[in-house]
């Protein structure tokens, strides 16, 4: 396999026009990813149409470069403005933005760039090495495991993001999940919480909600904050890029987690990032730094989300099941170009997987060099006073919210959620669990009910060890929420006056 990849690599590198297009696509991908509301999925969907009729080699070189660039690009605005460009960069904002506030945005960008490089590379290696075997393991995840994994992810985010106010983290997560259930129920076709409003029949789109929740509090409080203090950015990107050598084991582990999550159909880059972030926080010796500018936090999140790219391609190419939303759009591009993904791919078109491997390898290295100008532009933007910058950001958020579905209703959704969440934010309700709840709510709901539809006897769980482990983990979290360990914050029972705090 490796020989075939390197043979393809030589062929691709001998085509300067193709490499030039990859550079352009990567830069555009980074810009798209950095803009809140413009997602990798949308960019790939547009490109599927634009590249129709081109040579398949060039088509996939452009599409995969945009994919990798966009997943990385989301971290730029997450670091600079605390507004993740994509959902997969929300975990990066937790530690990346505090670093920017400390004047270390260049360092954070360097770390994320190298972490994204390693993540993509790791996903690629796994894609080439163990794709068929890993895809078979992913198929062990049935509805109940998917539902429990989703629930575990949401609850753990509320639990870890706000160590001092866990209950508010869970309230945010529950509100997020509840919001995600608005619209026509996909299992039975009944409307839920639509109040007879036709626009609500399809529910709330994730991206406008995400933009509103992250951007509007930032804009309103930034425009009216008492102290406007400009933070000069010090240091160089290269410092951050070199720093990653001290976190090699963490990057490796996050890469494994990201790829593993990416393989699970429907999970995607955002969950890959969160899971890697939580694992890093659980095991870190410097837990107190998380949320305040932890290098480990951004290494884990960025390695996790980019590793999920390779992971998502594994079931796509071997089973024709996309592992993420961008991979689902990629499936359309494959079919449009006469590529039939699935178990027969390696027999019918054995040259395709090595070609994808070679393209991703080039994309990995382009990630390191492309977009330097983009980053410099954003670093300069930090020198603009907040009161000047924030109205401009507001205009861009309106464009972003509208562009995703070309709907003015989405702008209203973005603003509505933003205003409500500004109030919640002032009272220290965290934003991240809410967004994760919105993303994972439908997955949990559908899979849970599908399980009950198929299995009326709960004893079936005894035959599913992964599900039992996840149930035990969720139960442990609930117990810790009710009765926290000694020295921790007041528990739920104490707050209700049912137990001494």
């Amino acid at each position, binding site marked *: 396999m490796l020989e075939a990849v390197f043979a393809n690599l030589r062929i691709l590198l001998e085509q300067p026009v193709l490499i030039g297009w990859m550079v352009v696509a990567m830069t555009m991908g980074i810009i798209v990813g950095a803009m809140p509301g413009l997602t990798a999925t949308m960019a790939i969907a547009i490109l599927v149409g634009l590249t129709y009729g081109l040579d398949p080699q060039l088509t996939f070189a452009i599409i995969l470069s945009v994919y990798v660039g966009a997943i990385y690009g989301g971290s730029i605005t997450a670091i600079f403005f*605390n507004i993740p460009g994509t959902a997969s960069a929300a975990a990066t904002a*937790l530690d990346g933005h505090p670093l920017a506030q400390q004047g270390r945005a260049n360092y954070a960008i360097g770390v994320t760039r190298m972490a994204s490089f390693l993540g993509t590379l790791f996903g690629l290696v796994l894609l080439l090495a163990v794709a068929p075997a890993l895809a078979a393991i992913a198929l062990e995840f049935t509805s109940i495991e998917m539902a429990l994994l989703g629930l575990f992810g949401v609850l753990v985010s509320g639990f870890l993001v706000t160590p001092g106010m866990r209950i508010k983290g869970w309230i945010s997560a529950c509100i997020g999940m509840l919001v995600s259930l608005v619209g026509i129920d996909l299992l039975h076709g009944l409307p839920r919480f639509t109040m007879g409003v036709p626009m609500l029949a399809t529910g709330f789109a994730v991206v406008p909600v995400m933009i509103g929740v992250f951007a509007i509090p930032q804009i309103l409080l*930034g425009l009216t904050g008492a102290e406007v203090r400009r933070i000069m950015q010090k240091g160089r990107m290269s410092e951050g890029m070199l720093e990653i050598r001290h976190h090699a084991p963490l990057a490796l582990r996050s890469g494994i987690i990201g790829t593993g999550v990416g393989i699970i159909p429907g999970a995607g880059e955002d969950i890959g990032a969160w899971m890697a972030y939580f694992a890093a926080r659980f095991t870190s010796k410097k837990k107190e730094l998380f949320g305040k500018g932890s290098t480990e936090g951004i290494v884990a999140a960025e390695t996790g989300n980019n590793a999920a790219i390779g992971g998502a391609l594994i079931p796509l190419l071997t089973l024709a099941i996309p592992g993420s939303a961008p991979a689902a759009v990629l499936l359309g591009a494959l079919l449009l170009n006469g590529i039939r993904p699935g178990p027969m791919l390696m027999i019918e078109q054995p040259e395709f997987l090595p070609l994808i491997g070679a393209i991703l390898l080039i994309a990995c290295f382009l990630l390191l060099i492309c977009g330097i100008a983009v980053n410099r532009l954003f670093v300069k933007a930090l020198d603009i006073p*907040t009161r000047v910058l924030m109205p401009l950001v507001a205009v861009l958020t309106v464009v972003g919210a509208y562009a995703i579905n070309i709907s003015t209703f989405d702008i209203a959704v973005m603003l509505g959620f933003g205003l409500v969440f500004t109030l919640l934010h002032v009272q220290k309700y965290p934003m991240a669990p809410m967004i994760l709840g919105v993303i994972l709510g439908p997955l949990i709901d559908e899979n849970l009910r599908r399980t009950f539809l198929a299995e009326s006897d709960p004893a079936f769980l005894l035959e599913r060890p992964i599900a039992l482990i996840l149930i035990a983990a969720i139960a442990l979290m609930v117990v810790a929420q009710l009765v926290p360990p000694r020295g921790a914050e007041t528990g739920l029972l104490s707050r209700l006056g049912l137990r001494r705090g």
Partner: protein
Amino acid sequence: MTSPASASDEPAEPAEGRGALRDAALGGVLWLLNLAALFESVRLTFGVTFPGSEDQGALIAPGFMPLALTLALFVMLSAVVVSALRRGALHEGRALLQSPLAETVRPLARPFAQAILLCLFVFGLVGLVPFWAAAALYLFAALLLAGALKWHWAALLSLTSAVTVHLLMGTVMGIPLP
């Protein structure tokens, strides 16, 4: 650069000022909204039947997960409100009623005005006039209200920014503008 709305703000009880009162008020409003959602969830769980799946009943109903979530929220929001009351929300409320109105309203005026401006931009201008004009008007008003620039600089920046967004995103990148 300031970052008042950081996702990573140090999580702590909002102790400053009227933290407990705000916690109780916000928790109370959410509690009431959740109560409405709870009733609707009960209807969606027990008020609908599906032929052929009577055995599973409520477990597969569209209201099953909303019911579980609203029940969880009911308990947690109650905890937030009770906790806020125990931290002196009522006392803070009484103090608020006795304080001069201007003192209470003044800190809220600017954020409220910026929020209104944003609403006017989204609900009033977008779709009514070309996007570049709507954006320029909003930018000008927001910059003036924030006291960021003198009026002529604000006008220049608003117009150039709006036209740049229109040309770069709308024309060059082909992104649909509202």
